[in-house]
């Protein structure tokens, strides 16, 4: 379960941003996330939809304890992300489009490293690693250096890294960006499997096809503010345009 209450995250504008004249900036500051509230429930997929620079990644980083909120509160698996950040990180798995792998390690070394960081017992780590490697087809290249693997293979290792400690909450930040169709499909399958397994899933994207394929709940974020937050079915019911994409554009342009 993820509960986000009145979350705001402000950043100082960089020199480049000042030159670009960020539209929703207030003086030297900009609210990347402004007074945002939503909740993600176990066994459901929550899609966070927004154009580039909308605040999706900032919101996910706040949930994953990488950033501290300027105001508001986030609870992940019952733990506060500021006061109990260590506990939150034990229960969370985080996957981004950039694989985030050590090129000089092998998949085995990489997965064992993250398993140990999560305090897994050797026997459990070995079993879980074996299961994931079989499921994702990593066994055949488990001993090769990651730098020599294809992008599809790397993404599989990245998924195994995210799942090794069997987290209750999964955060996917634009997980299919830059991937080929086959690899992207396998990631979408994995996200669906997580829902079946009763996990809490939040994923950010700007690809409408993924939203319609996966979403149980949907939030649209633009310039740090939520424009919509309800179920996907409710969104489809109240749509004023023919397609999801058109409706998304309409809402963003109206904001």
């Amino acid at each position: 379960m993820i509960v986000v209450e009145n979350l705001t995250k402000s950043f100082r504008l960089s020199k480049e941003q000042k030159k670009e004249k960020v539209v929703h900036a207030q003086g030297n500051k900009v609210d990347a996330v402004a007074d945002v509230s939503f909740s993600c429930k176990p066994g459901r997929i929550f899609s966070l939809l927004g154009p580039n620079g909308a605040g999706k990644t900032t919101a996910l980083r706040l949930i994953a304890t990488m950033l501290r909120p300027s105001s508001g509160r986030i609870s992940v698996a019952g733990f506060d992300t500021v006061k109990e950040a260590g506990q939150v990180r034990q229960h969370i798995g985080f996957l981004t489009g950039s694989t985030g792998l050590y090129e000089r390690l092998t998949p085995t070394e990489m997965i064992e490293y993250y398993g140990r960081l999560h305090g897994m017992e050797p026997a459990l780590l070995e079993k879980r690693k074996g299961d994931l490697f079989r499921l994702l087809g990593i066994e055949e290249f488990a001993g090769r250096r990651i730098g020599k693997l294809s992008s599809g293979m790397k993404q599989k290792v990245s998924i195994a890294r995210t799942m090794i400690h069997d987290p209750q909450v999964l955060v996917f930040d634009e997980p299919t960006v830059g991937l080929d169709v086959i690899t992207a499909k396998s990631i979408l399958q994995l996200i669906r499997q997580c829902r079946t397994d009763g996990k809490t899933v939040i994923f950010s994207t700007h690809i409408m096809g993924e939203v319609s394929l996966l979403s149980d709940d949907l939030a649209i974020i633009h310039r740090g503010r939520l424009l919509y937050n309800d179920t996907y079915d409710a969104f489809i019911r109240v749509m004023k345009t023919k397609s999801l994409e058109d409706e998304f554009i309409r809402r963003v342009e109206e904001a």
Partner: protein
Amino acid sequence: MKLLTIIFRKELRDMLRDRRTLFFMIVMPFLVIFLIFNLSMRLGMDMEKRAQEKELQVAVFAAGPLPEFINMLQVSKKVKINTTVNKKEIEQTVQNGRLDFAISFAEDFSETVDREGTNEVQIYYKASTSENEMALERIRKVMEKYKQQLLERRLQKKNMTAAFVEPIKIVEKDVSSIREKMGQRLGGMLPYFLVIFCFLGAMYPAIDLAAGEKERGTMETLLVSPASRLQIVVGKFLVVTASGIFTALSSVLWLYLVFRQSRMIPPGVLGVILKLIEWKSLLLLFSMIIPLCAFFAAILLSVSVFAKSYKEAQSIITPLNIMIIIPVLIGIFPGIKLNATTALIPILNISLATKEIIAGTISPLLMVEVFLVLFVLAALGLIFCTRWFNREAVIFRGV
């Protein structure tokens, strides 16, 4: 502690698989030391040999013949007397290299000698090369011998001995040991290698483990792991420090091996040099390298994590190399010694302390001061680095 160990072991494994880091740790110290040592020794020896064996083109200008002086000049058989040059063209011919030396006696030289007066003899040469400076010594020796001969003749005429013009004979007795003398010379070179290699050895791992991780996206996944920022920083810091220490030790080892294998150092001198490198000195040097590498690691990691990319980190860190060399070079200047004030200046204190350790003249109190300064600096560096890693604006700069 368990997480810190896990991070340290992983970072160490990752670092030891990086070819660039291994090159900086092992191959580069050897190449630099081997090339500097061999090139400088060979060039120095070749230059001295050329200066000694070169046939010097010398013109002698005097009102009358000076057969004794000319004979003295030609005894070495490596002096060719040039009689074709006009006196008016002395400076020009020496300047354009046709002549190596021109010796000009005054017009009234013989009369002044007979009058028992003092003559001025001018030697024209070009001091723009070290080779000419060495060749000048050959001419000076001949002039000195000729002067001595003239003086002896005068004294004989007056029935006097050489003691008459030499009431005091100065005998200099240097009581410094060979170790002290060699320590000052060798000790000037050693800190140069130690400091530079501590820095270079720590440089690439620091860039790779911070800016490199940001660029590859691994920093993000590491920050979501249960390891705290402090554990992540300290794990990386220890690996970068270890790399600096290893590189410095590798440079000392290469220096020892290159000296030992060298055929250019006379065996007697080599024996003295090898005796200087005793365990006590090595332990003292090693104990200074640890805090120095820790300080470098903290600074380099802080800069590296601030950088948006590997490239930006390199462009910020490269000029730091020069800043590091400056205090080392100041330490090599003669006259600058380790005292309560210089012991407070980082890097300069290492440079000066190394000389004294090798010479065996280090004061225990000053050694303690140097250690304290280095440890305080390393601790401050680590505290700064940890706080820096905790700043969102730094760690997510450009991510």
